[in-house]
């Protein structure tokens, strides 16, 4: 069959373009490769993790330093969260972790607050001080209950 360099060039560019597109979708948008610096693994136990997901971000003062690697059920039925954070950070051993929500409907993430201890957390250590996720439904439930009891008193008064 006759060689057709021009056509071959177009086919080559088409395939290349498609592969670059797939790579962009997978790596940049799909986030396959992004692990950040990573390296230091810490464990934190909470009473309640709410809707925290794998790959949720871990921040200090709003700066992303890592992500959630695994969420399991640990001892005493307490959720156990493994964090994968930047290995270059020397976090004091009295660092605390809390689960926060980005905005009212946003995703949940973990915020670390470094303490003042001179000892440093090493890989595999667990974070002692944790604050669980706030579950909006329970808050609303409490609020409604309180309001409800207030109303019944008032209606009782008016009788």
């Amino acid at each position, binding site marked *: *069959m006759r060689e*057709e360099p021009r*056509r*071959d060039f*177009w*086919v080559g560019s*088409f*395939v290349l*373009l*498609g*592969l670059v*597109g*797939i790579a*962009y*979708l*997978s790596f*940049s*948008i*799909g*986030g*396959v490769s992004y692990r950040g610096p990573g390296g230091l693994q810490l464990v934190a136990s909470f009473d309640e993790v709410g809707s925290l997901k794998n790959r949720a971000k871990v921040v200090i003062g709003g700066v992303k330093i890592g992500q959630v690697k695994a969420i399991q059920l640990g001892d005493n039925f307490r959720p156990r969260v493994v964090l994968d954070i930047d290995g270059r950070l020397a976090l004091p051993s009295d660092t605390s972790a809390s689960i926060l929500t980005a905005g009212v*409907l946003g*995703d949940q993430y973990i915020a670390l607050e470094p303490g003042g201890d001179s000892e440093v957390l090493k890989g595999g250590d667990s974070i002692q001080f944790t604050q669980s996720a706030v579950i909006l439904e329970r808050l609303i439930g409490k609020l409604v209950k309180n309001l409800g009891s207030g109303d019944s008193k008032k209606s009782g008064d008016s009788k």
Partner: protein
Amino acid sequence: MTPFGAVSALGGWTVGAVRDLGRFSVFSASVADAGRRPPLRLRRLVAEVYDTGVLSLLIVCVSGFAVGMVLGLQGHNTLARFGADQQLGAVVGLALIRELGPVLTSLLVAGRAGSAMAAEIATMVVTEQLDGLRMMSVDPLDFVVAPKAFAMILSMPLLSTLFVLFGILGGYVIGVVVLGGDGGAYMSTLEDAVEFSEDVLGGLIKGGVFGVLVGLIATYRGFTATPTSAGVSSAATSTVVIASVSTLIVDYFITALWGT
């Protein structure tokens, strides 16, 4: 029609449908076999990728851009009611990557390249070119059908990816440039919402499966066309109809099996 005749007609139809399905399966298996066995005929494959893939680029990219713009507009209007217009990137991206990209690309390519493929092979049947090949002891499955089918399988995921990227660009143009949303929020909600294994891989698999479907249906319809001019046109028509409908049906099952 007597009741006996009606039942016989139903029986005849069923036997015909089963026979057609069986022929299609045998045909698919022989195409797969032809792709595995030398001679591989890579030059023929390149020529067919040019016809199927490169020549479909323009229509796929333009359609993707238009669909992205519509999604941007509709998504913005709907999300703004809930004050969640920041999430526009996630809505546009997920809709395109998971569903609209692969499905619409498949429908477009079935109409643009699938019908041409079926008509070309059917014309070769009518003009006895396939018989000519057989006389020269060249297997037409090997020389004509397999390169076309594999070109479709190769092109579909690539075209679908480009559809998705142009759609995301279209959504960006409407949501950010025209309606004045936040560009950073568009991209970051998109990147947060899209997971590789659940969304991107699922979309690529859909693209591949649709490529197999459209490629095999188009070549089968052409290969088994009745050797008349009406046969050529009915091969092209039925390719578009059957490929489009089966794309939509198979899409449901892939989503149901893959989705969580």
